[in-house]
Structures are given as structure tokens and as C-alpha cells.
């Protein structure tokens, strides 16, 4: 039944997967560029943003078209509404990767005040979180709820740690203020990316259950519920 609609839904999922892959690559490339002070790579990340922006518009039109012509209801409707949100979130993540790359260009001629440890770690976690959420969307499986919550907490903690460290360095030596503020900002960018990824997972949760959850006050009950839903 509804062969045509099922086909179209699959196309949307494939496209979102593609878009998220591009976004992930942009994120990892921007962090790679940061570590190696690779301006060329940073510029290529910035260039790739146009691609993601175009994809966002295309996908939004396509989802709009499907909503207009196929008139989805219930889960189908939630899927389409969520797809809209996911696309926006992915685009925001790509924008943040671009921001990081811009900072990389700003830092091109600097010698780093210390080796980068927490930032790559945070970015890795954010990337993992994004992958998890997109995976959850493709498979419509929210069993990773606990992992997502844990990852988010970890990212938040790392961000706080980065801020604290940057402030320490900046207080120790005024020369570090420029670098310190940028690294601190990058930390915040990554935290934002984590938030967007969590948002994506929240929409998947919405698709599956029709409810919204707030990761800020997540309790056992909701986790239980989600696990039940998956059985």
C-alpha cells in the first residue's frame, strides 16, 4: 500500500543521510584544520556550506511537496514535520562548522598556547552524537536515548572545562586572551552542535512516540517508556 509515498519517504531519508554525512565531514574537517592550522581545508569547509544551504532549500521544498500532495497524517505527518526540523538543525550544524573554520583562518598565524586536547575530544563526542541521532532517525529507533543523554552531559562538562581552562590561561598571561577567547568560543560552538544533534534525536523521539522530551530534566520514567516502545 502507498508504494509511491513509501518510495518518496525513502528518498527523503536518503537525502537527509547524505546531508548529515556532508555536515559531519565539514565538522571533522574544521577540527582537523584547527589542529593542523590548515587554512586551505578550512576554506574548503566554508565553500561546502553553499552546498548544504542549497540542499536544505531543496529538501525543504521536497518535504513541502510531499506534505502538499500526499497529505500525510499521524506518524507520516510527524515524520515529515520532523524531517523539516532535522534539515534545519543540520544546516545550523554546518553553519557552526563554518564558524569554526573561520576561527581557524583567524588563528592561522598564531602559535597555540597549548596542545589541543579537549576541543578535538568534544568535537568527536558531538560528531558521535550527530551520528547517533541521524541513525536513530533513519531506523526510527530511540533505544539510544540513554547514550544520547550521556553524550550530551559529557559535552556540556567538557565545554565548561574548556571555558575554565581558557580563563585560567588568559588570567595567567594577557597574550593568551586572543587565543583563549577563540578557543572558548569554539568550545561553545561544539556545545551548540551537540545541542542541535540532541534536537534531532528529540524529533526522532517525537516521531516514535508523539511526545516531546526535554533532555534537561530527563528521568527514568521517560527512558523506561522509550524502551517499552521499542520492544
Amino acid at each position, binding site marked *: 500500500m502507498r508504494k509511491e*509515498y513509501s518510495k518518496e519517504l525513502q528518498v527523503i531519508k536518503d537525502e537527509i543521510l547524505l546531508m548529515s554525512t556532508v555536515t559531519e565531514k565539514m565538522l571533522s574537517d574544521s577540527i582537523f584544520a584547527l589542529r593542523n592550522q590548515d587554512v586551505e581545508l578550512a576554506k574548503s569547509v566554508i565553500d561546502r556550506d553553499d552546498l548544504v544551504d542549497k540542499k536544505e532549500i531543496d529538501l525543504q521544498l521536497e518535504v513541502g511537496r510531499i506534505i502538499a500532495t500526499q*497529505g500525510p497524517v499521524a506518524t507520516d505527518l510527524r515524520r515529515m514535520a520532523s524531517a523539516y526540523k532535522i534539515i534545519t538543525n543540520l544546516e545550523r550544524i554546518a553553519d557552526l562548522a563554518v564558524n569554526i573554520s573561520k576561527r581557524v583562518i583567524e588563528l592561522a598565524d598564531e602559535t597555540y598556547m597549548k596542545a589541543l586536547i579537549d576541543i578535538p575530544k568534544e568535537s568527536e563526542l558531538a560528531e558521535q552524537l550527530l551520528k547517533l541521532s541521524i541513525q536513530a532517525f533513519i531506523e526510527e529507533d530511540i533505544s539510544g536515548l540513554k547514550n544520547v543523554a550521556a553524550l550530551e552531559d559529557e559535552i556540556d562538562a567538557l565545554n565548561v572545562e574548556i571555558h575554565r581552562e581558557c580563563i585560567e590561561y588568559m588570567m595567567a598571561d594577557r597574550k593568551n586572551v586572543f587565543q583563549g577567547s577563540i578557543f572558548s568560543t569554539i568550545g561553545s560552538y561544539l556545545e551548540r552542535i551537540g545541542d542541535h544533534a540532541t534536537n534531532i534525536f528529540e524529533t526522532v523521539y517525537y516521531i516514535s512516540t508523539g511526545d516531546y522530551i526535554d533532555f534537561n530534566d530527563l528521568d527514568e520514567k521517560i527512558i523506561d517508556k522509550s524502551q517499552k516502545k521499542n520492544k
Partner: protein
Amino acid sequence: MDNKVKFNTKNLDLFYGDFQALKSINMEICENEVTAFIGPSGCGKSTFLRCLNRMNDLIDCVDIKGEIIFDGKDINGDIDVINLRTRVGMVFQKPNPFPMSIYDNIAYGPKCQGLKDKAKLDTIVKDSLERAALWDEVKDRLNKSALGLSGGQQQRLCIARTIAMNPEVILMDEPTSALDPIATLKIEDLMQSLKKLYTIIIVTHSMQQAGRISDKTAFFLMGEVIEFNETPKIFTNPDDKRTEDYITGRFG
């Protein structure tokens, strides 16, 4: 899509006595596409559909002006109506299987064309039912009356009956309005698979249906075509205010 134009109407006017039911219709309908006609009741969409295989001949006091070019010939001119109807089949609003066996229903058309070869008829019946996704459901009861089938099955039988004539175009006049949602979806899926082989023109009261299945949509109002465009375009950003009003339900 750059499909070949199948039907091309030029300044088509149609009168029921003094009442003008169609006003200067100009439309190009392409091959292997699903074209949907939507519009409020009495807007002329069914009338226009019936012009395409001259079913309006059955009604007295109908006067048609203008041209309907089908494969290079004006079908209102001097053509063989029987031949036209074998090439342009029609499925109606209410399932109307003849009160005979399933087999005879399918074989009726070919038999009327003088086909008597039993083996050939058997093949036609099987092929048609398979294409209409009905074969598995009825293969064991081909000699039972078609009236024993469910509404949805009856309608698919009518589609199979039309396919048996191997037409180029299938006209459908609100084919699912008498069916339940499940049967409706089956017919819609069927149309999607048939579109590769035939040109399908469908009149529908359900805008959602037009959206789901058609490639192009024409919006009729008071005997005029207000807008004829790609379906997504009509449903996301129609050019005409009246189309917008109709599809958003703010009509009238």
C-alpha cells in the same frame, strides 16, 4: 517531463442545449502520465473527460465546438467511434461489472471485436487480471458471477476489463468515490503501476487523491480550466487565487 502529447484540445466548447458546460478548453495531455481533473461539482470536469472518448454522444442535445486532436486526428470529426473507444477506455464512478462471470466480463470487449479464439481469450483474461492486480484474488473463481466481488475488486475488474482492450488511454471518472479507503489506496497504487503502459486521465473529487497520484492537475471552475500545471506546483504554490482558494478549502 517531455512526454509526447496524446490529447490536444483547441478551443473546445460544449453546450447542453443553451447551457454552456465547457468554455474554450485548451489542454495538452501527455503520454504515460497521470493527469487529474479537480474542481467543484458541475464544473465540467466529467463532461470534458467524456468528450475524450465521445461518451457524450449518448446524451441528446449536446453540441460540441472546437477540436480534440488525438494522435493527429480530430475525434469530433469523421472517425470510427467504436475504434476510438477501444483505444480510449473508460472506468466509471460506480463499479459496473456486467452481471456475468468474471471471465466473461473481461472477455466481453475482445469478443465484441470479433475475437473467438479461446486460447487467445484465456491469455487476455489472465494478463488483464494480472495487470489489474486481481488475478491472485479471483483465479479460482473465474466462472463465478462478478457481482459476488467486493466493491474494490469490482472496480479493479472494471479496470482489468478496460485493459483487456489494450487501450492507449484510460479515462477514469471518480473511480474511487464509491470505495472505502483501503480499496481506494489499492486502486491508486494500481494507477501508478499502470501509468508506465497507459496514459491515465482521472476526474476526482478528492484533492488529496489528485495530489497523491497525478503528475499534472487541471483545476476546472464553471466550465473553464483555471489552472493546468504540474501537481506539486498546484498544491504548493498555485498561480491563480481561485485555485488556491479551492485547494485550501476557502472556496466560495
